[in-house]
């Protein structure tokens, strides 16, 4: 497989004016030359192969969007080099645009007041999609989702879910080599999320399109991504298979307990009872969560210990979620 995206030691710095407080400060700001440099992306390198689905994760402000903007050619890296499909995207933005598709979560590229089919026709002409390519793509869409009712509906009358779905279809329409999806499932209900995941997966399989996906929803990652890249504060924390990451933390499970009585008291008591075992106890308003490392302690043993001294009203056992995995990375780092 050939690499479609190569990112070599890319750093992106922004110059930001140091703002002062208050009216007087704002006045002074008008004449200020007091800039500070912010590193949004700090020395990132990766290569992405044709056909991969890569989950690009990180907390808000980590530098995800900045990286995507550099890959699409809207921003130019301060240092380092990015090649997308053999082009330098920021030098050849218009040419690069022909080969990529983008969906930015809460923004639409569709023509607001026109029915979806008109947007499609327009994109067909703008991207100069040949007739056969266009009709085979529409046929593929029809086999994947029920777009017939959407086609003749003006975009402004669509629900958020329908609009996102339409935007994704629009991004794939010219059969681009790469599609960037920036938080595509934000604000959607569970069934729509599923629909969209299935669609992205199918389009990736069918057309071998490279997909770069940023999201905060671990469901997206679990459903779609083979590989994940995590960045925080502009630095790359992790770049590997999702399986590898799960394997790394896989022996953890969370036991959730709801005892009779005050949760806080029980939680404190449990901490004492379970001292010496490899567990950590946390609590919220409803549940006491015990994170158990199964390599060292059995969940059954833990349960045995705590049910001796109290009534357990309710309990459940959870696999560690990717979200917790990422939180653990933030806390401990990958060794």
């Amino acid at each position: 497989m050939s690499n479609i995206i190569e990112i070599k030691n890319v750093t992106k710095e922004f110059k930001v004016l140091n703002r002062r407080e208050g009216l007087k400060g704002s006045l002074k700001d008008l004449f200020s030359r007091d800039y500070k440099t912010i590193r949004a992306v700090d020395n990132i390198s990766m290569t992405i192969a044709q056909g991969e689905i890569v989950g690009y994760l990180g907390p808000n402000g980590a530098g995800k969007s900045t990286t995507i903007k550099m890959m699409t050619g809207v921003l130019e890296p301060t240092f380092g080099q990015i090649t997308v499909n053999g082009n330098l995207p920021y030098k050849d933005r218009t040419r690069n645009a022909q080969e990529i598709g983008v969906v930015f979560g809460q923004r639409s590229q569709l023509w607001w007041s026109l029915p979806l089919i008109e947007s499609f026709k327009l994109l067909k002409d703008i991207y100069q999609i040949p007739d056969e390519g266009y009709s085979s793509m529409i046929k593929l869409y029809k086999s994947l989702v029920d777009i017939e009712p959407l086609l003749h509906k003006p975009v402004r009358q669509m629900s958020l879910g329908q609009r996102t779905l339409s935007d994704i279809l629009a991004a794939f329409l010219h059969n681009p080599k790469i599609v960037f999806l920036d938080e595509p499932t934000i604000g959607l209900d569970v069934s729509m999320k599923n629909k969209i995941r299935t669609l992205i997966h199918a389009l990736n399989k069918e057309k071998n399109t490279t997909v770069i996906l940023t999201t905060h929803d671990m469901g997206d990652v679990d459903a779609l991504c083979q590989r994940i890249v995590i960045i925080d504060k502009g630095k790359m924390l992790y770049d590997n298979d999702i399986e590898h990451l799960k394997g790394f933390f896989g022996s953890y499970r969370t036991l959730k307990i709801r005892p009779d009585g005050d949760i806080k008291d029980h939680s404190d008591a449990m901490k004492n009872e379970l001292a010496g075992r490899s567990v950590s106890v946390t609590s919220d308003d409803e549940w006491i969560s015990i994170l158990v490392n199964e390599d060292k302690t059995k969940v059954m043993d833990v349960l045995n210990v705590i049910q001796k001294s109290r009534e357990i009203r309710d309990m459940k056992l959870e696999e560690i979620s990717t979200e917790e995995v990422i939180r653990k990375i933030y806390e401990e780092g990958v060794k």
Partner: protein
Amino acid sequence: MKLKKYFALTRAGILESFQFRLAMLVMVAGNLLYLTVVYFLWKAIYASSGTDVVNGMTFSDTLIYLVLATALFNFMEMYAVWEIGRSIQSGKIVLDLLKPMPFRSYLFWSYSGTFVTQFFATFLPTFIIVCVVTGGAVPLGINLLYFVISVVMAVIINYSIDFMTGTICIYTESIWGINIMKQVIVLLLSGATIPIAFFPEPLKKAVSYMPFQSIYNTPLSILLNGSPKAETVLSALGVQAFWCIVLLIISNLFWKFSLRKITVNGG
């Protein structure tokens, strides 16, 4: 088929403007109101001057000129400054920049559909009404052809000025004041609100060195001149062509330079 992708945008623009029938109606009504004000204002001006001809123009000359200027304004005004400013503020510009054509063309052709609808909805009816009502005050001959050529260049000049003004929004991140300022300057100095014949001599001279009069004054003068001399028309069109080229180049360079600024320093 390179042009096809641009005409596709024109087509979408026409379709879109049909979606807003009411807006079109309101616009026509608003124009009638404005023209009523113009009528009474100039009537008063001529009444108080005591003569029938002021600065070489009769009352009906002035009125015809201003009515057609308004019609021309409706059809040429692109609100490009708004569009650019708003897409910069909202961040939508990222999506527009990622279309497989230059942003400048994309914006222009996206708007071009409105040219077509506005031409048929406001300019043409106004023109026909003026012709009929004044009973032949507007000459219909070869001047129409010159007029069309002149309007095409006027559109390009107007768009270049708009585009340049819009580019300033990259630096200021605000639109309102800049847009109002641009509009006042262009409408006044181009002769769209007051015919240039009425300007005092020094201002007239100053305006002749500026590009603005090429937007409204030149096409309208050409249109209203029934027996044009070849050299006057050619020199007027020549001046327009000059500004066309100069402004195209300047606005393009300014945009490229500013865009680099965003791409280097961030949105």
